[in-house]
Protein backbone atom coordinates (compact mmCIF):
# COMPACT_ATOMS: atom_id res chain seq x y z
CA UNK A 1 0.00 0.00 0.00
CA UNK A 2 1.49 3.34 -1.06
CA UNK A 3 1.89 6.30 1.27
CA UNK A 4 -0.52 9.19 0.52
CA UNK A 5 1.16 12.26 -0.94
CA UNK A 6 -0.31 14.48 1.75
CA UNK A 7 -0.96 13.21 5.27
CA UNK A 8 -2.56 15.64 7.71
CA UNK A 9 -3.11 14.26 11.18
CA UNK A 10 -4.53 16.19 14.13
CA UNK A 11 -3.06 19.51 12.99
CA UNK A 12 -3.61 22.42 15.39
CA UNK A 13 -2.65 26.05 15.04
CA UNK A 14 -3.48 29.15 17.06
CA UNK A 15 -2.69 32.82 16.58
CA UNK A 16 -2.89 34.26 20.09
CA UNK A 17 -6.44 33.48 21.24
CA UNK A 18 -7.68 32.66 17.77
CA UNK A 19 -7.71 28.96 17.07
CA UNK A 20 -7.23 28.63 13.33
CA UNK A 21 -6.99 24.84 13.20
CA UNK A 22 -8.41 22.51 15.83
CA UNK A 23 -7.26 19.03 14.91
CA UNK A 24 -7.62 18.66 11.15
CA UNK A 25 -7.09 15.18 9.73
CA UNK A 26 -7.19 13.94 6.14
CA UNK A 27 -5.07 12.33 3.43
CA UNK A 28 -4.72 13.27 -0.21
CA UNK A 29 -3.20 11.37 -3.10
CA UNK A 30 -2.80 11.85 -6.84
CA UNK A 31 -5.69 13.82 -8.26
CA UNK A 32 -7.35 17.05 -7.22
CA UNK A 33 -8.57 17.48 -3.67
CA UNK A 34 -10.87 20.44 -3.25
CA UNK A 35 -10.96 22.32 0.03
CA UNK A 36 -14.20 24.13 0.68
CA UNK A 37 -15.06 26.32 3.62
CA UNK A 38 -16.22 29.80 4.56
CA UNK A 39 -13.78 32.59 5.37
CA UNK A 40 -11.97 31.86 8.62
CA UNK A 41 -12.44 28.10 8.26
CA UNK A 42 -8.66 27.57 8.41
CA UNK A 43 -8.11 26.61 4.77
CA UNK A 44 -5.40 29.18 4.11
CA UNK A 45 -3.59 28.35 7.35
CA UNK A 46 -3.60 24.67 6.42
CA UNK A 47 -2.41 25.39 2.88
CA UNK A 48 0.41 27.56 4.22
CA UNK A 49 1.51 24.57 6.27
CA UNK A 50 1.37 22.35 3.20
CA UNK A 51 3.45 24.97 1.40
CA UNK A 52 6.03 24.66 4.23
CA UNK A 53 5.85 28.34 5.19
CA UNK A 54 4.00 27.83 8.46
CA UNK A 55 4.65 25.30 11.22
CA UNK A 56 1.80 23.59 13.10
CA UNK A 57 1.53 23.91 16.90
CA UNK A 58 0.57 20.26 17.19
CA UNK A 59 -0.18 17.27 15.01
CA UNK A 60 1.67 15.61 12.18
CA UNK A 61 2.06 16.65 8.59
CA UNK A 62 3.80 14.68 5.87
CA UNK A 63 4.13 15.83 2.31
CA UNK A 64 5.41 13.53 -0.45
CA UNK A 65 6.52 11.21 2.34
CA UNK A 66 8.61 13.87 4.08
CA UNK A 67 8.20 15.81 7.30
CA UNK A 68 8.26 19.60 6.70
CA UNK A 69 9.35 20.08 10.31
CA UNK A 70 12.81 18.68 9.48
CA UNK A 71 15.00 21.11 7.51
CA UNK A 72 16.44 18.57 5.05
CA UNK A 73 13.06 17.06 4.33
CA UNK A 74 11.46 20.50 4.09
CA UNK A 75 13.96 21.38 1.36
CA UNK A 76 13.12 18.17 -0.50
CA UNK A 77 9.42 19.10 -0.36
CA UNK A 78 10.08 22.65 -1.57
CA UNK A 79 11.96 21.28 -4.58
CA UNK A 80 8.87 19.37 -5.69
CA UNK A 81 6.20 21.87 -4.69
CA UNK A 82 4.30 24.53 -6.59
CA UNK A 83 2.47 27.04 -4.43
CA UNK A 84 0.05 29.78 -5.33
CA UNK A 85 -0.82 31.84 -2.23
CA UNK A 86 -4.26 33.32 -1.69
CA UNK A 87 -2.86 36.83 -2.05
CA UNK A 88 0.17 36.39 -4.25
CA UNK A 89 2.33 39.49 -4.18
CA UNK A 90 4.20 40.57 -7.27
CA UNK A 91 7.18 42.70 -8.08
CA UNK A 92 5.06 45.29 -9.80
CA UNK A 93 7.91 46.85 -11.74
CA UNK A 94 9.00 43.51 -13.17
CA UNK A 95 7.56 42.20 -16.39
CA UNK A 96 5.59 38.94 -16.19
CA UNK A 97 8.58 37.15 -17.72
CA UNK A 98 11.06 38.73 -15.29
CA UNK A 99 8.96 37.84 -12.26
CA UNK A 100 8.46 34.20 -13.25
CA UNK A 101 12.16 34.05 -14.17
CA UNK A 102 13.06 35.44 -10.71
CA UNK A 103 10.95 32.73 -9.04
CA UNK A 104 12.51 30.12 -11.33
CA UNK A 105 15.97 31.10 -10.09
CA UNK A 106 14.77 30.79 -6.48
CA UNK A 107 13.54 27.32 -7.52
CA UNK A 108 17.20 26.60 -8.27
CA UNK A 109 16.88 26.63 -12.06
CA UNK A 110 20.30 28.10 -12.79
CA UNK A 111 20.86 27.13 -16.40
CA UNK A 112 19.79 30.31 -18.17
CA UNK A 113 18.64 28.86 -21.47
CA UNK A 114 16.72 25.95 -19.94
CA UNK A 115 15.18 28.30 -17.37
CA UNK A 116 14.01 30.78 -19.98
CA UNK A 117 12.50 27.94 -22.02
CA UNK A 118 10.64 26.78 -18.91
CA UNK A 119 9.42 30.31 -18.13
CA UNK A 120 8.13 30.67 -21.68
CA UNK A 121 6.43 27.26 -21.41
CA UNK A 122 4.48 28.10 -18.24
CA UNK A 123 3.53 31.57 -19.50
CA UNK A 124 2.22 29.99 -22.69
CA UNK A 125 0.36 27.40 -20.63
CA UNK A 126 -1.59 30.09 -18.81
CA UNK A 127 -2.10 32.10 -22.00
CA UNK A 128 0.19 35.01 -21.15
CA UNK A 129 2.80 34.62 -23.87
CA UNK A 130 1.48 37.74 -25.58
CA UNK A 131 1.95 39.96 -22.54
CA UNK A 132 5.08 38.41 -21.03
CA UNK A 133 7.03 41.60 -21.70
CA UNK A 134 4.48 43.83 -20.05
CA UNK A 135 5.03 45.11 -16.52
CA UNK A 136 2.92 43.39 -13.89
CA UNK A 137 1.52 46.71 -12.68
CA UNK A 138 -0.01 47.12 -16.14
CA UNK A 139 -1.74 43.72 -16.10
CA UNK A 140 -5.36 43.12 -15.09
CA UNK A 141 -6.22 41.27 -11.86
CA UNK A 142 -7.05 38.09 -13.79
CA UNK A 143 -3.76 38.23 -15.68
CA UNK A 144 -1.86 38.67 -12.43
CA UNK A 145 -3.50 35.57 -11.01
CA UNK A 146 -2.40 33.72 -14.11
CA UNK A 147 1.16 34.95 -13.52
CA UNK A 148 0.87 33.50 -10.01
CA UNK A 149 -0.38 30.22 -11.46
CA UNK A 150 2.44 30.20 -14.01
CA UNK A 151 5.12 30.44 -11.31
CA UNK A 152 3.45 27.59 -9.39
CA UNK A 153 3.64 25.39 -12.50
CA UNK A 154 7.40 25.95 -12.94
CA UNK A 155 9.28 22.68 -13.10
CA UNK A 156 6.08 20.62 -13.36
CA UNK A 157 5.91 19.99 -9.58
CA UNK A 158 4.65 16.74 -8.05
CA UNK A 159 2.51 18.66 -5.59
CA UNK A 160 0.50 21.77 -6.42
CA UNK A 161 -1.01 23.80 -3.58
CA UNK A 162 -3.41 26.42 -4.94
CA UNK A 163 -5.18 28.82 -2.63
CA UNK A 164 -8.29 30.27 -4.30
CA UNK A 165 -6.74 30.27 -7.78
CA UNK A 166 -9.97 31.12 -9.60
CA UNK A 167 -10.84 34.21 -7.56
CA UNK A 168 -11.10 37.15 -9.95
CA UNK A 169 -11.00 35.05 -13.12
CA UNK A 170 -13.70 35.45 -15.76
CA UNK A 171 -15.65 32.34 -16.89
CA UNK A 172 -13.41 31.74 -19.90
CA UNK A 173 -10.26 31.99 -17.77
CA UNK A 174 -11.79 29.64 -15.20
CA UNK A 175 -12.42 27.05 -17.90
CA UNK A 176 -8.82 27.44 -19.06
CA UNK A 177 -7.67 27.03 -15.47
CA UNK A 178 -9.72 23.84 -15.10
CA UNK A 179 -8.15 22.49 -18.26
CA UNK A 180 -4.60 23.24 -17.07
CA UNK A 181 -5.09 21.80 -13.59
CA UNK A 182 -7.01 18.71 -14.68
CA UNK A 183 -4.26 17.87 -17.21
CA UNK A 184 -1.75 17.87 -14.39
CA UNK A 185 -3.80 15.86 -11.93
CA UNK A 186 -3.56 12.43 -13.52
CA UNK A 187 -0.33 11.48 -11.79
CA UNK A 188 0.21 14.52 -9.57
CA UNK A 189 -1.41 15.78 -6.41
CA UNK A 190 -3.28 19.06 -6.46
CA UNK A 191 -4.71 20.68 -3.34
CA UNK A 192 -7.20 23.33 -4.36
CA UNK A 193 -8.82 25.72 -1.92
CA UNK A 194 -11.82 27.55 -3.25
CA UNK A 195 -15.15 29.18 -2.53
CA UNK A 196 -16.47 28.04 -5.90
CA UNK A 197 -18.52 24.87 -5.47
CA UNK A 198 -18.81 24.66 -9.28
CA UNK A 199 -15.04 24.30 -9.53
CA UNK A 200 -15.12 21.48 -7.01
CA UNK A 201 -17.99 19.74 -8.81
CA UNK A 202 -16.25 20.11 -12.17
CA UNK A 203 -12.69 19.25 -11.16
CA UNK A 204 -12.31 17.36 -7.92
CA UNK A 205 -12.80 13.64 -7.38
CA UNK A 206 -12.41 14.40 -3.69
CA UNK A 207 -13.59 17.26 -1.48
CA UNK A 208 -12.83 18.27 2.10
CA UNK A 209 -15.14 20.77 3.81
CA UNK A 210 -13.71 22.76 6.70
CA UNK A 211 -15.32 25.08 9.19
CA UNK A 212 -13.94 26.73 12.32
CA UNK A 213 -10.67 24.86 12.04
CA UNK A 214 -12.21 21.41 11.76
CA UNK A 215 -12.92 18.92 9.01
CA UNK A 216 -16.68 18.65 8.53
CA UNK A 217 -16.71 16.40 5.51
CA UNK A 218 -14.29 14.27 3.53
CA UNK A 219 -15.56 12.43 0.46
CA UNK A 220 -16.54 12.73 -3.19
CA UNK A 221 -18.56 15.66 -4.59
CA UNK A 222 -21.46 13.25 -5.12
CA UNK A 223 -21.35 12.25 -1.46
CA UNK A 224 -21.30 15.93 -0.53
CA UNK A 225 -24.36 16.56 -2.70
CA UNK A 226 -26.00 13.51 -1.11
CA UNK A 227 -25.73 15.17 2.30
CA UNK A 228 -28.61 17.34 1.11
CA UNK A 229 -30.58 14.55 -0.60
CA UNK A 230 -34.24 14.74 0.40
CA UNK A 231 -33.65 18.13 1.98
CA UNK A 232 -33.82 20.47 -0.98
CA UNK A 233 -37.17 21.53 -2.36
CA UNK A 234 -38.72 24.23 -4.46
CA UNK A 235 -41.69 26.23 -3.25
CA UNK A 236 -43.56 29.34 -4.20
CA UNK A 237 -42.70 30.94 -0.87
CA UNK A 238 -39.78 30.90 1.50
CA UNK A 239 -40.28 27.99 3.89
CA UNK A 240 -40.20 29.29 7.49
CA UNK A 241 -38.54 26.12 8.80
CA UNK A 242 -35.83 25.96 6.14
CA UNK A 243 -32.24 26.40 7.26
CA UNK A 244 -31.52 28.32 4.10
CA UNK A 245 -33.75 29.69 1.38
CA UNK A 246 -33.28 31.90 -1.63
CA UNK A 247 -35.33 33.06 -4.59
CA UNK A 248 -34.18 31.54 -7.85
CA UNK A 249 -34.31 32.95 -11.35
CA UNK A 250 -37.73 31.48 -12.11
CA UNK A 251 -39.24 33.25 -9.10
CA UNK A 252 -39.56 30.18 -6.91
CA UNK A 253 -37.69 29.62 -3.65
CA UNK A 254 -35.05 26.95 -3.24
CA UNK A 255 -35.23 25.75 0.35
CA UNK A 256 -32.72 23.64 2.21
CA UNK A 257 -33.58 21.95 5.49
CA UNK A 258 -36.16 19.47 6.73
CA UNK A 259 -38.57 19.24 3.84
CA UNK A 260 -42.28 19.25 4.71
CA UNK A 261 -44.40 16.37 3.46
CA UNK A 262 -45.49 16.81 -0.15
CA UNK A 263 -42.67 19.19 -0.95
CA UNK A 264 -41.31 19.20 -4.51
CA UNK A 265 -37.92 17.65 -3.84
CA UNK A 266 -35.15 18.36 -6.31
CA UNK A 267 -31.78 16.80 -7.09
CA UNK A 268 -29.24 18.31 -4.65
CA UNK A 269 -26.03 19.90 -5.87
CA UNK A 270 -22.59 20.10 -4.28
CA UNK A 271 -23.48 23.62 -3.25
CA UNK A 272 -26.63 22.42 -1.44
CA UNK A 273 -24.64 19.84 0.50
CA UNK A 274 -21.97 22.39 1.34
CA UNK A 275 -24.49 25.02 2.46
CA UNK A 276 -26.31 22.52 4.60
CA UNK A 277 -23.08 21.46 6.27
CA UNK A 278 -21.65 24.87 6.87
CA UNK A 279 -24.91 26.65 7.51
CA UNK A 280 -25.76 30.27 7.38
CA UNK A 281 -22.17 31.51 7.56
CA UNK A 282 -21.36 30.16 4.12
CA UNK A 283 -24.76 31.17 2.84
CA UNK A 284 -24.21 34.77 3.85
CA UNK A 285 -20.87 34.75 2.03
CA UNK A 286 -22.41 33.22 -1.10
CA UNK A 287 -25.14 35.84 -1.05
CA UNK A 288 -22.58 38.59 -0.62
Amino acid at each position, binding site marked *: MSIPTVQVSGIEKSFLRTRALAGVTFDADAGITGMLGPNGAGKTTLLRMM*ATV*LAPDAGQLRMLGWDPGK*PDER*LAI*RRRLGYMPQEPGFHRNFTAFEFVD*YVAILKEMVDRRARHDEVRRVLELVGLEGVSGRKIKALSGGMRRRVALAQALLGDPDLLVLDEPTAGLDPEQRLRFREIVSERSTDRTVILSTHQTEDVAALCPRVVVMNEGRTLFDGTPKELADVARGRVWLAAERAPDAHLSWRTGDGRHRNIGSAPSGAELVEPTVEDGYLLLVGTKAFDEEAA
Partner: protein
Amino acid sequence: MVTSVRASVREARALATQASDRLPSPRVVLALAGIETRKILVHPVFLGTMGVCALFITRAVGSNGNIGWLVGGIAVGLVAGGFISASLATQRARRDRVLELFGSLPAPAETRTAAVLLGGLFGPVVLASLLGVIGGAALEADAKIAPYVDLSLLVQIPLTVAAMCALAVALGRWIPSPVTAPVVLVAQVMTGLVWVIPWVAPTSSGIRMGRHVTYLVSFIVVASAAALVRDRRTLLRLIVAGLALALMAGAAATQLPPGGLR
Protein backbone atom coordinates in the same frame (compact mmCIF):
# COMPACT_ATOMS: atom_id res chain seq x y z
CA MET B 1 -5.54 46.76 16.13
CA VAL B 2 -3.02 45.74 18.81
CA THR B 3 -4.26 42.17 18.59
CA SER B 4 -3.85 42.09 14.82
CA VAL B 5 -0.32 43.48 15.14
CA ARG B 6 0.53 40.85 17.72
CA ALA B 7 -0.99 38.17 15.55
CA SER B 8 1.10 39.39 12.64
CA VAL B 9 4.24 39.34 14.75
CA ARG B 10 3.46 35.85 15.97
CA GLU B 11 2.71 34.70 12.46
CA ALA B 12 5.94 36.21 11.22
CA ARG B 13 7.80 34.30 13.92
CA ALA B 14 6.03 31.10 12.96
CA LEU B 15 7.01 31.71 9.35
CA ALA B 16 10.58 32.28 10.46
CA THR B 17 10.66 28.88 12.16
CA GLN B 18 10.20 27.32 8.73
CA ALA B 19 13.27 29.01 7.28
CA SER B 20 15.73 26.91 5.37
CA ASP B 21 18.89 25.88 7.24
CA ARG B 22 20.92 25.56 4.09
CA LEU B 23 23.45 28.09 2.85
CA PRO B 24 22.59 29.77 -0.44
CA SER B 25 23.90 28.17 -3.60
CA PRO B 26 26.54 30.40 -5.27
CA ARG B 27 25.07 29.62 -8.71
CA VAL B 28 21.61 30.72 -7.59
CA VAL B 29 23.04 33.89 -6.01
CA LEU B 30 24.95 34.73 -9.20
CA ALA B 31 21.92 34.15 -11.41
CA LEU B 32 19.80 36.34 -9.18
CA ALA B 33 22.55 38.98 -8.93
CA GLY B 34 22.33 39.43 -12.70
CA ILE B 35 18.69 40.48 -12.37
CA GLU B 36 19.42 42.66 -9.33
CA THR B 37 22.26 44.43 -11.14
CA ARG B 38 20.01 45.26 -14.05
CA LYS B 39 17.21 46.42 -11.76
CA ILE B 40 19.53 48.70 -9.76
CA LEU B 41 21.06 50.23 -12.88
CA VAL B 42 17.71 50.96 -14.56
CA HIS B 43 16.01 52.18 -11.39
CA PRO B 44 14.68 55.72 -11.99
CA VAL B 45 16.45 56.99 -8.86
CA PHE B 46 19.76 55.63 -10.06
CA LEU B 47 19.30 56.94 -13.58
CA GLY B 48 18.29 60.35 -12.22
CA THR B 49 21.31 60.63 -9.98
CA MET B 50 23.55 59.44 -12.80
CA GLY B 51 22.33 62.42 -14.80
CA VAL B 52 23.32 64.71 -11.94
CA CYS B 53 26.67 62.90 -11.74
CA ALA B 54 27.36 63.55 -15.42
CA LEU B 55 26.41 67.20 -14.96
CA PHE B 56 28.81 67.61 -12.03
CA ILE B 57 31.69 65.88 -13.80
CA THR B 58 31.15 68.05 -16.89
CA ARG B 59 31.18 71.07 -14.60
CA ALA B 60 34.43 69.85 -13.02
CA VAL B 61 36.23 70.22 -16.35
CA GLY B 62 37.25 73.81 -16.55
CA SER B 63 36.16 74.55 -12.99
CA ASN B 64 39.44 76.26 -12.36
CA GLY B 65 40.77 73.54 -10.12
CA ASN B 66 37.71 72.91 -8.02
CA ILE B 67 37.96 69.23 -7.10
CA GLY B 68 34.66 69.58 -5.24
CA TRP B 69 32.71 69.25 -8.49
CA LEU B 70 34.26 65.87 -9.18
CA VAL B 71 33.81 64.53 -5.66
CA GLY B 72 30.35 66.09 -5.47
CA GLY B 73 29.36 64.46 -8.74
CA ILE B 74 30.44 61.08 -7.51
CA ALA B 75 28.71 61.64 -4.19
CA VAL B 76 25.38 62.72 -5.62
CA GLY B 77 25.44 60.37 -8.55
CA LEU B 78 26.93 57.03 -7.78
CA VAL B 79 26.92 56.99 -3.99
CA ALA B 80 23.43 58.40 -3.44
CA GLY B 81 21.92 56.65 -6.44
CA GLY B 82 23.49 53.30 -5.56
CA PHE B 83 22.61 53.74 -1.90
CA ILE B 84 18.91 54.47 -2.47
CA SER B 85 18.33 51.96 -5.27
CA ALA B 86 20.17 49.16 -3.38
CA SER B 87 18.08 49.94 -0.30
CA LEU B 88 14.85 49.76 -2.31
CA ALA B 89 15.96 46.53 -4.00
CA THR B 90 16.61 44.98 -0.58
CA GLN B 91 13.11 45.84 0.60
CA ARG B 92 11.34 44.88 -2.60
CA ALA B 93 10.15 41.45 -1.46
CA ARG B 94 8.71 42.82 1.76
CA ARG B 95 7.14 45.85 0.08
CA ASP B 96 5.57 43.74 -2.67
CA ARG B 97 4.35 41.10 -0.18
CA VAL B 98 5.97 38.15 -1.85
CA LEU B 99 7.61 36.78 1.31
CA GLU B 100 4.99 34.04 1.69
CA LEU B 101 5.59 32.81 -1.85
CA PHE B 102 9.37 33.09 -1.55
CA GLY B 103 9.19 31.26 1.79
CA SER B 104 7.88 28.18 -0.02
CA LEU B 105 10.82 28.08 -2.45
CA PRO B 106 14.02 26.06 -2.01
CA ALA B 107 16.43 29.02 -2.02
CA PRO B 108 16.87 30.50 1.49
CA ALA B 109 16.10 34.19 2.17
CA GLU B 110 19.76 35.19 2.31
CA THR B 111 20.06 34.25 -1.36
CA ARG B 112 18.18 37.44 -2.16
CA THR B 113 20.24 39.51 0.29
CA ALA B 114 23.50 38.19 -1.16
CA ALA B 115 22.22 38.83 -4.68
CA VAL B 116 21.48 42.50 -3.92
CA LEU B 117 24.93 42.86 -2.31
CA LEU B 118 26.48 41.48 -5.47
CA GLY B 119 24.11 43.55 -7.60
CA GLY B 120 25.57 46.65 -5.93
CA LEU B 121 29.05 45.42 -6.74
CA PHE B 122 28.34 44.41 -10.32
CA GLY B 123 26.37 47.53 -11.20
CA PRO B 124 27.24 50.77 -9.42
CA VAL B 125 30.76 49.71 -8.48
CA VAL B 126 31.79 48.65 -11.98
CA LEU B 127 30.19 51.82 -13.29
CA ALA B 128 32.04 53.86 -10.65
CA SER B 129 35.35 52.31 -11.70
CA LEU B 130 34.67 53.11 -15.34
CA LEU B 131 33.53 56.64 -14.61
CA GLY B 132 36.50 57.18 -12.33
CA VAL B 133 38.92 56.16 -15.07
CA ILE B 134 37.10 58.12 -17.77
CA GLY B 135 36.63 61.16 -15.53
CA GLY B 136 40.24 60.96 -14.39
CA ALA B 137 41.48 60.85 -17.99
CA ALA B 138 39.30 63.80 -18.94
CA LEU B 139 40.50 65.82 -15.98
CA GLU B 140 44.16 65.12 -16.73
CA ALA B 141 43.91 68.07 -19.12
CA ASP B 142 42.98 70.39 -16.26
CA ALA B 143 46.29 71.37 -14.77
CA LYS B 144 44.75 72.44 -11.46
CA ILE B 145 42.69 69.29 -10.89
CA ALA B 146 45.13 66.76 -12.38
CA PRO B 147 47.32 66.64 -9.24
CA TYR B 148 44.32 65.43 -7.23
CA VAL B 149 43.54 62.59 -9.63
CA ASP B 150 45.70 59.62 -8.77
CA LEU B 151 45.44 55.87 -8.28
CA SER B 152 44.25 56.22 -4.68
CA LEU B 153 41.31 58.34 -5.81
CA LEU B 154 40.40 55.83 -8.50
CA VAL B 155 40.51 53.03 -5.93
CA GLN B 156 38.49 54.92 -3.34
CA ILE B 157 35.62 55.80 -5.67
CA PRO B 158 34.43 52.21 -6.33
CA LEU B 159 35.22 51.20 -2.75
CA THR B 160 33.10 54.05 -1.39
CA VAL B 161 30.24 53.17 -3.70
CA ALA B 162 30.53 49.50 -2.66
CA ALA B 163 30.57 50.46 1.02
CA MET B 164 27.48 52.62 0.67
CA CYS B 165 25.63 49.94 -1.31
CA ALA B 166 26.50 47.36 1.36
CA LEU B 167 25.35 49.81 4.08
CA ALA B 168 22.09 50.31 2.17
CA VAL B 169 21.48 46.55 2.06
CA ALA B 170 22.24 46.18 5.78
CA LEU B 171 19.92 49.07 6.67
CA GLY B 172 17.26 47.70 4.34
CA ARG B 173 17.38 44.34 6.10
CA TRP B 174 17.40 45.74 9.65
CA ILE B 175 15.23 48.85 9.21
CA PRO B 176 12.95 47.99 6.31
CA SER B 177 11.32 51.26 5.39
CA PRO B 178 11.32 53.19 2.11
CA VAL B 179 12.42 56.33 3.96
CA THR B 180 15.44 54.73 5.63
CA ALA B 181 17.90 55.44 2.82
CA PRO B 182 16.86 59.08 2.14
CA VAL B 183 16.81 59.87 5.89
CA VAL B 184 20.28 58.38 6.41
CA LEU B 185 21.61 60.31 3.42
CA VAL B 186 20.19 63.61 4.67
CA ALA B 187 21.39 62.86 8.21
CA GLN B 188 24.91 62.30 6.94
CA VAL B 189 25.03 65.78 5.52
CA MET B 190 22.97 67.62 8.15
CA THR B 191 24.53 66.12 11.26
CA GLY B 192 28.14 65.81 10.24
CA LEU B 193 27.89 62.02 9.99
CA VAL B 194 29.40 62.52 6.58
CA TRP B 195 32.81 62.39 8.25
CA VAL B 196 32.33 58.99 9.84
CA ILE B 197 30.90 57.13 6.86
CA PRO B 198 32.94 55.99 3.86
CA TRP B 199 34.10 58.90 1.80
CA VAL B 200 36.58 59.78 -0.89
CA ALA B 201 39.63 61.64 0.44
CA PRO B 202 42.23 63.05 -1.97
CA THR B 203 45.85 62.20 -1.23
CA SER B 204 46.49 65.92 -0.82
CA SER B 205 44.31 65.90 2.30
CA GLY B 206 47.13 64.16 4.08
CA ILE B 207 45.03 61.12 5.01
CA ARG B 208 46.90 57.89 5.65
CA MET B 209 45.74 56.24 2.48
CA GLY B 210 46.57 52.63 3.40
CA ARG B 211 44.51 52.87 6.56
CA HIS B 212 41.72 54.71 4.80
CA VAL B 213 41.45 51.96 2.18
CA THR B 214 41.57 49.34 4.97
CA TYR B 215 38.73 51.22 6.64
CA LEU B 216 36.68 51.18 3.43
CA VAL B 217 37.24 47.46 2.78
CA SER B 218 36.49 46.46 6.38
CA PHE B 219 33.38 48.65 6.29
CA ILE B 220 32.13 46.70 3.26
CA VAL B 221 32.74 43.41 5.10
CA VAL B 222 30.99 44.64 8.29
CA ALA B 223 27.94 45.93 6.40
CA SER B 224 27.67 42.80 4.24
CA ALA B 225 27.95 40.53 7.27
CA ALA B 226 25.37 42.62 9.13
CA ALA B 227 22.96 42.21 6.21
CA LEU B 228 23.47 38.46 6.01
CA VAL B 229 23.31 38.00 9.79
CA ARG B 230 19.77 39.38 9.65
CA ASP B 231 18.79 36.30 7.66
CA ARG B 232 20.84 33.79 9.61
CA ARG B 233 23.20 34.08 12.54
CA THR B 234 26.12 31.76 11.97
CA LEU B 235 29.20 31.72 14.16
CA LEU B 236 31.44 32.31 11.15
CA ARG B 237 29.52 35.41 10.08
CA LEU B 238 29.57 36.80 13.60
CA ILE B 239 33.33 36.20 13.92
CA VAL B 240 34.02 37.77 10.50
CA ALA B 241 31.81 40.74 11.36
CA GLY B 242 33.51 41.16 14.74
CA LEU B 243 37.02 41.02 13.32
CA ALA B 244 36.13 43.38 10.47
CA LEU B 245 34.49 45.77 12.92
CA ALA B 246 37.63 45.85 15.06
CA LEU B 247 39.77 46.42 11.98
CA MET B 248 37.41 49.13 10.73
CA ALA B 249 37.42 50.96 14.06
CA GLY B 250 41.21 50.76 14.29
CA ALA B 251 41.72 51.99 10.72
CA ALA B 252 39.15 54.77 11.11
CA ALA B 253 40.72 56.01 14.33
CA THR B 254 44.23 56.13 12.92
CA GLN B 255 43.62 57.21 9.32
CA LEU B 256 43.80 60.93 10.06
CA PRO B 257 47.25 62.50 10.02
CA PRO B 258 48.51 64.27 13.15
CA GLY B 259 46.88 67.68 13.21
CA GLY B 260 43.92 66.55 11.10
CA LEU B 261 43.16 66.69 7.39
CA ARG B 262 44.67 69.43 5.29
